[in-house]
């Protein structure tokens, strides 16, 4: 039987921790600063001022959301481990997967709330359809970042290494498609073993990374939103990747000795 009470309590305390860490105040400050920047850009732009505002505001909010979510999860988990709270929770009569699900549910709630808060200011500048797609995609992106941050902090246990690994994952996922295109445009017709090996490695890494470059795109806000096929594809990608990384984190959690 799944200990639902344990999972919901753990999720609730995780959200409470976010509130007490003033995470939502930080989010409000970021939104305020972003709106101020948008107003400044509106003053200086000669043309396409709305597009410039939307593009820079959305880019800034997306990166800020990813940074806040990853930093909160990593520091929270490390603090819990240092305070021996993790050991206390694992000593409860509930399986380790329940502990993981509780933490994941709490962090996921924070990530979704943050995505909604960060999408709101864009409603002033962007069309509704595009904004809905952008916000839904930001939710998916933050859920992926949540699972990867949890995986990294469970595996690496240190703030610095976990944050570096999460950052590397994020930038690699965003730039992998461009790297594949560049790797495929080698100008020499004779491919050496090294060329073939590098291409193979790049393709293999790309297979196990999510297509973050196709998600939360600013052109949805400036031009038109994604089609139904693309939206479903992104939802499927996010769901599969969250399950994949969560199960990898669970695998690691079950192998750890506390």
């Amino acid at each position, binding site marked *: 039987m799944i200990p639902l009470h344990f999972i919901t309590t753990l999720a609730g305390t995780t959200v409470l921790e976010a509130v007490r860490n003033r995470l939502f105040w930080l989010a409000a400050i970021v939104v305020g600063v972003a709106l101020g920047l948008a107003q400044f850009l509106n003053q200086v732009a000669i043309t396409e001022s709305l597009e410039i505002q939307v593009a820079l505001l959305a880019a800034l909010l997306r990166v800020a959301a990813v940074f806040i979510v990853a930093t909160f999860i990593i520091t929270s988990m490390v603090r819990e481990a240092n305070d021996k709270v993790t050991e206390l929770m694992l000593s409860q009569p509930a*399986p380790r*997967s329940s502990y993981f699900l509780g933490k994941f549910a709490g962090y996921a709630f924070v990530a979704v709330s943050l995505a909604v808060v960060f999408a709101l200011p864009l409603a002033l500048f962007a069309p509704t359809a595009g904004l809905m797609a952008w916000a839904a995609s930001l939710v998916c992106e933050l859920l992926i970042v949540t699972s990867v941050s949890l995986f990294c902090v469970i595996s690496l246990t240190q703030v610095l290494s976990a944050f570096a690994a999460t950052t590397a994952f994020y930038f690699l996922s965003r730039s992998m*498609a*461009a790297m*594949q*295109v*560049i790797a*495929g*445009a080698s*100008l*020499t*017709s*004779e491919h050496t073993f090294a060329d073939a090996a590098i291409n193979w490695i790049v393709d293999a890494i*790309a*297979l*196990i990374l*999510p*297509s973050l470059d196709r998600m939360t795109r600013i052109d949805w806000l400036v031009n038109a939103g994604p089609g139904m096929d693309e939206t479903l*594809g992104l939802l*499927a*990608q996010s769901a*599969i*990747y969250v*399950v*994949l990384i969560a*199960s*990898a984190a*669970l*695998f690691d959690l*079950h*192998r*750890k*000795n506390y």
Partner: protein
Amino acid sequence: MAERPPSDVPKAVLAILAGALALQITLKMSHPVTPPAASDLHPPPSQASLRLASLGDPIPLAKVLMLYLQSFDYQALNRIPYQALNYDTVRQWLLRVLWLDPRGQYPLLAASRLYAEVPDETKVRQMLEFVYEQFAGDPDRRWPWLAHAAAIAKHRLDDLPLAKRYAAAIQQHATGPNVPLWAKQMEVFILEDMNELETARIMIGGFLSSGTIHDPAEIRFLDQRLREIEARLKSQP
């Protein structure tokens, strides 16, 4: 502290992990990355935007932009790469890359040896003129690309006056100690009745023996070009 054995992990977790990994790989394989088409190449960002994007260090950005530009309209299956590109846009990109990294040679190599290889005389002339214009900015470093442009003008375009103009520019402006004698006397090659292969052999051989090329990839590239010219001339009646 030693970790627990993998057999301690619940079977359900292993099954979900394996299943999700298989799904992820299947999903990614069903959406292969497609190389950008020629029409996808938009004009480059402004100098101010690039300066901002470079974060005060323009050389890495120049290198990445060059690789980015090179990937447009180039596919292994493309019989003639680059010919569908808008060359005004390509020229703007090359200018931006040179502006970011004036000592970099890649944009001029690309202009003279990649983008000037297309079977479209107008586009070839556009790239040769680009090389000629940019040669004036740093003749002692950029002469090899103008020398190649002179060879293209003579053999591909059959335009001796143009070839002579480029050769004369090298003779007049590339006066540094590192410029080999054959380059300074390029005009003679232009006037002599040599075929394309002979010219290419002298030029590429000259580049390699002068020691001005150190990059193994560039040596391989030039060697490959030489063999392509040989094969093309052999196949001609």
